[in-house]
Structure formats: structure tokens, C-alpha cells
């Protein structure tokens, strides 16, 4: 077989011959039997090469199949759900449904979601209101030192309030002053000092004991001492007091 013949047969099969050359090629096929045989044989060889490699490729595809789990027939009774996630035209609808589901799950799980201790502290801590020395009318000259301290406490000037509480002669023995001093310290992020004051009040006075336990729980929460915090909230949750419900809610959220 001549190499020129092989090239022109290739070009004719690929369709890259010009119109004139293709016409001349076809005329030669009709008049030259040897050339016609060469053409048919080359065509067969090319088809055979393709056939051989096609079998190899198909075998590779079959190997992919062997590596996969069994075929799962998709549910014929729910074609819309299938379309939602397989047909790009429905991706918008699917996205909306997923957003609604995500929000629903978020709100359902909100109660059971476990928060970071500091987040919980921020959510539950409120300085105890001043009910010891309520100041209704400001008259600096007429206020006692104790009243001044509580006035600053009311104004959330906790640094001044702490200094004034400590300047009171009986601050270490007066349970009310110690309690507010502890709350002022906690409000100023000094949970260690607050814990110390609250511990000194624990189980000393039944009228303030629940409050002491609640704020002690918050102190430990702030310090990330969750097991200690949990013990105080558990104690409060198991008895009837003004902190029972809050204690139950916070217990569900502590990590």
C-alpha cells in the first residue's frame, strides 16, 4: 500500500478533502479495483481500532459500576421531590423549602441549643434591684453614706458604689450591704470578688439564700466553672422559689 494512498484515504474518511479532490477520489474508487479494496480494508482497520478501544473504554465504565453501591430505584410516587433536587429548573424552589426547614429547625431547637457560658451569663445576669434603700428624691445634703452608695448603685456607677459600700463601717457584717457589694462587683466583671462575698452569705439567711445561690451560679458560669454553676441552678430548680423557672431554663442550655 502506497503511503500517499493511505494519507488520502484518511483525509477522505475524516472529510477534510476539498470538493474536487473528494470527487476525484470517488471516481478512482469506481475505476481502480485495487484502490477500492485498499479503501475498504483501511476503513475496516480504522473501525477495528475504534472497536477495540471502545471495548476498553466500556470495560473502564463497567469497573466504575463495580465500585458503586447497588442501583437504587428512585421513588416513582414522588416525582416532584425528585425533580426538586435533580432538575436545575427547580433549584430555586428547593432552596426556598430548605430555608423554611432550616428556620423551623432553628426555632424548634432554640430551647435545646447549648450556649457558651459567657453568652448565657450575659443573657441571664441582671443586677439585683435596689430594694434596701430606694432613693425617691435626690438631695445630696440629706443622704447618708449608705444611701449615697445605693444611689450610685441605682445609677449603675458600680465603681463608686463599691468604694462607698466598702467605706461603710459595718459593710463586712451587714448581709444586705455585702450582698449588693457582691452584685456591684459582678456587674463590674469582678466575679472572683463577688463569689467571695456571696460565699460568705451562703446559708446564713433564709430570706436572701435563693438570691445568693442564683448569683453564685452566675458567678461560676462567668468563670466557666459549669459543674459548680449547674449545682446551684439544680438546687434552685428543685425547690419552689422565685428562681425555679429561670434555673430550669438555664440548666437546659449549659454545655
Amino acid at each position: 500500500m502506497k503511503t500517499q494512498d493511505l494519507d488520502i484515504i484518511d483525509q477522505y474518511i475524516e472529510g477534510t478533502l476539498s470538493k474536487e479532490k473528494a470527487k476525484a477520489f470517488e471516481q478512482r474508487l469506481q475505476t481502480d479495483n485495487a484502490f477500492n479494496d485498499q479503501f475498504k480494508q483501511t476503513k475496516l482497520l480504522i473501525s477495528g481500532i475504534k472497536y477495540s478501544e471502545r471495548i476498553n473504554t466500556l470495560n473502564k465504565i463497567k469497573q466504575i459500576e463495580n465500585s458503586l453501591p447497588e442501583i437504587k430505584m428512585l421513588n416513582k410516587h414522588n416525582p416532584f421531590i425528585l425533580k426538586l433536587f435533580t432538575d436545575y429548573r427547580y433549584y430555586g424552589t428547593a432552596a426556598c423549602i430548605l430555608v423554611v426547614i432550616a428556620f423551623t429547625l432553628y426555632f424548634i431547637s432554640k430551647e435545646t441549643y447549648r450556649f457558651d457560658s459567657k453568652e448565657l451569663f450575659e443573657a441571664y445576669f441582671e443586677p439585683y434591684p435596689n430594694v434596701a434603700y430606694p432613693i425617691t428624691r435626690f438631695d445630696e445634703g440629706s443622704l447618708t453614706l449608705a444611701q449615697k452608695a445605693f444611689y450610685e448603685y441605682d445609677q449603675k456607677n458600680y465603681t463608686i458604689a463599691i468604694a462607698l459600700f466598702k467605706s461603710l463601717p459595718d459593710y463586712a457584717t451587714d448581709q444586705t450591704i455585702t450582698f449588693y457589694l457582691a452584685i456591684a462587683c459582678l456587674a463590674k466583671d469582678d466575679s472572683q470578688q463577688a463569689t467571695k462575698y456571696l460565699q460568705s452569705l451562703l446559708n446564713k439567711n433564709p430570706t436572701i439564700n435563693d438570691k445568693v445561690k442564683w448569683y453564685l451560679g452566675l458567678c461560676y458560669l462567668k468563670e466557666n466553672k459549669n459543674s459548680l454553676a449547674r449545682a446551684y441552678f439544680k438546687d434552685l430548680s428543685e425547690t419552689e422559689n422565685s428562681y425555679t423557672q429561670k434555673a430550669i431554663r438555664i440548666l437546659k442550655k449549659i454545655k
Partner: protein
Amino acid sequence: MTKNNSLIFERLKKEDESVLIKVYESYRDEFISWLVKKYNCDIDEALEVYQNSILAFCENVRNKSKIVYTSTVKTYLFSLGKNKYSEYKRYRDRCDKDKSFPLIECEENINEEELLKYEDNLKKVQESLVILGEPCKSLLEMFYYHQKTCEEIGTLMEYKNEDTVKNQKRKCMIRLKKIFEQQTENIHIYSN
């Protein structure tokens, strides 16, 4: 066509096997469920049609002239599936019911006897290719099946230049022809 689809076509064109696996896996269950429901065929038949549709898909993506670039991968694959199933049914209706899907390209109007003879000849070429060996076998497969250019073959097989590839290809084809003729007694068997 989405950017993602276009990327899949591009990577398949480069014969990226990881993308082929991904495409095969992504559409298999849906395609087979659809075919079984539409034509009431069994799962094995549907799987054979799916694998041949994937094969045709790869070949068409490679052959730039055939690919419909406005389709998504899924639309294109499923439309190929419809045609492949009709082809499969026609073949089953006129040939042996136990024979697997035909992997040959031939004229529609040839009879069963001619078809079987033609298939037999293709198998002889396949045997001749094994005897031909490397590097000729790979070179011819790259040129005729994978439709790589002489330049691409030169790079892949580390030939000096395009002309060297062309010369080597001619030599390989002549050697294959000789082996094939030795394999067959009658040189006119290919005349269908």
C-alpha cells in the same frame, strides 16, 4: 448551559477520569429508574443501555462536531439514552437475544449474517492490534479513537515532531494491515 456543565464537558473532553466517575454516579439511579419506567425494561437491560449511553457521551464530547453545547449534561445524556434504547431494541429484534449491546458502527440496512461477519472481522482487527503491540497500538488508538492531533500525540508519546508522528502512524498502519492479512485467509472479507 451553566458554567458547571460547561466545565464538565471541558474536563471530559480532556478524558478526566474523576469527572467521568462523578457523572456516571450522579445520573445512574435516575437514568435507570426513568428507563425502566418509560420502556418497561428490566434493570439489567437499562444498565447496559446506561453504560453504552455514557460511552457515546464520552465519544461525542471528544468529537467536537457532535456535541450539543446548549444542553446540560443531564439533558444530553438522557436524549442519548432514548436513542441508545431504540438502537438496542432494533439489534435485539434482529439478532441473538442473548447478545450484548453492539459496539460497532455500520450501515443500518445490512442483514444479520453480514452484521455478524462484520463484527467477526472487527474482532480480527482487535487481535491484530494485540500482535502489533506498543507503541503502534497506542498511537493508532490515540489517532483514530481518541481523535488526538499529531501534535498532541507527539507530546504524549515523546516524539520529536508532528512529521515523526505522521511517519510513525503510516508505518504502524502498514504493519497492522500485514498482520491482519496474515490473520485472514480471504482478503475480500471486509467487502461489505
